[in-house]
């Protein structure tokens, strides 16, 4: 990306560019700058337009592609977005974190398979994962009900652990972390849609009756279905926005604190030094806050999902 080198070579630091560069997506994983040269992991661009084209971002022009003002690949001739399923920074981060979760959970499941749980206390990773998994499992039981919470507990565990892991990886400033995955609206939208389909594909007769033919006075009968359908659609939207906005805001706040150091540096050693102390203290505070938010948001997303599923599983009026 050309924007990066421009930002650091120049004395005038473009804060919004730096911040949006960190929280946005990219066709390479920029790690740091070394002697004016960017150090980055090149990632494959995969474009489907009259066949599949695979190339790195540096060779985009040779393949007939350019970048638009948002830094996205477009056809150099027509200026239109092709079907772009490139392995971007976020996609790579998604792959790494999901693989990590897969390994952690399969390892834990393997521990439980190999050990007699009635005679042995879990150790190591299993002991670490058990409370998290069981917390979600118990949450599912409370909100969905004794009868069929087991069917939905794996999805809720998956959502919770995945969000939690990615929230924490997002706080990490260096390579495996650093991507702003849960602060990306596409990711939270997919998560919310998974919840939406889980809720609505498993709705009982009573759930749909409450939406389309609720027991209300006659004059409300035509209005209620509209409201109920709107509410059903707003649920995943609120899930999407809540997680996305919380994580994005946290990233922007921390990055802003870090940027203050570089902005104040040119106002002399006294002001720069004192502001550095202040912004480091604030940065530590915000990082701690983000750790809290990372957990809370994962918890809230999972709890709301389980409540929505529980509402869809009503057995009687």
């Amino acid at each position, binding site marked *: 990306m050309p924007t990066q080198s421009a930002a650091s070579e120049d004395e005038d630091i473009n804060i919004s560019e730096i911040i949006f560069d960190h929280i*946005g997506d990219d066709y390479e994983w920029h790690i740091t700058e070394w002697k004016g040269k960017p150090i980055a992991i090149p990632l494959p661009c995969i474009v489907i337009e009259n066949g599949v084209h695979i190339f790195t971002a540096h060779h985009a022009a040779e393949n007939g592609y350019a970048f638009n003002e948002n830094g996205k690949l477009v056809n150099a001739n027509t200026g239109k977005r092709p079907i772009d399923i490139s392995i971007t920074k976020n996609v790579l981060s998604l792959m790494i974190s999901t693989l990590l979760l897969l390994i952690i959970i399969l390892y834990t499941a393997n521990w439980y398979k190999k050990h007699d749980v*009635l005679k042995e206390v879990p150790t190591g990773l299993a002991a670490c994962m058990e409370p998290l998994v069981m917390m979600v499992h118990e949450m599912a039981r409370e909100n969905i009900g004794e009868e069929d919470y087991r069917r939905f507990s794996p999805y809720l565990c998956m959502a919770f652990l995945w969000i939690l892991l990615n929230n924490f990886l997002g706080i990490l400033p260096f390579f495996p972390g650093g991507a702003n995955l849960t602060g990306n609206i596409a990711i939270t939208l997919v998560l919310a849609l*998974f919840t939406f389909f889980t809720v609505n594909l498993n709705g009982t007769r009573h759930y749909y009756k409450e939406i389309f033919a609720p027991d209300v006075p006659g004059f409300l009968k035509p209005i209620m279905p509209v409201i109920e359908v709107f509410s059903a659609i707003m649920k995943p939207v609120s899930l999407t926005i809540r997680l996305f906005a919380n994580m994005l805001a946290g990233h922007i706040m921390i990055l802003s604190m870090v940027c203050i150091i570089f902005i104040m540096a040119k106002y002399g050693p006294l002001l720069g030094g004192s502001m550095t102390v202040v912004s480091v203290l604030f940065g530590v505070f915000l990082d701690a806050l983000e750790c809290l938010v990372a957990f809370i948001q994962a918890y809230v997303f999972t709890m709301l999902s389980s409540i929505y599923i529980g509402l869809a599983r009503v057995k009687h009026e």
Partner: protein
Amino acid sequence: MNLVTPDFGLLFWMVVIFGLVFFLLAKFGFPIITDMVDKRNAKIAQSLKDADEIEARMASWKQEQAQMMEDVRREQSAILREATETKAKIVADAKAQAKAEADKILAEAKQQIAAEKESALRDVRKEVALLSVQVAEKVLRQELKDEGSQRAFIDKLVDEASEAKLRS
């Protein structure tokens, strides 16, 4: 507005990767963990219940034991009392028996003494009779040396005998 427009590539990969891993973990991951832990929780709950039950049983046992101890003590004191009574009775019986025996022996002794006294008296009487006869003989021999006195004596005897006959 790059931030709030979902990117298709990311949507696609998220659905594929999340869906795939969810499928794998829902089959081979989470149910194994939760089932095992549920099993353990059930075992713990059962153990706690068992422990409670055992505790209750222990309490009842303790009570039973105390009851038993009480019974034993009561029985012990009853036996002791009985023993004391028996002892007193035996002693009393023995005393009575001994007294009876002693009385019997005493009576026998008295009888014997009485018999011996009788025989002794008889002996003495016999002796005295013999002695008196001898004395009388000697006296008579002394008194009846001459013929007159012999006659006087015979008269007197005849008188006495006739007087006795008359009186009777």
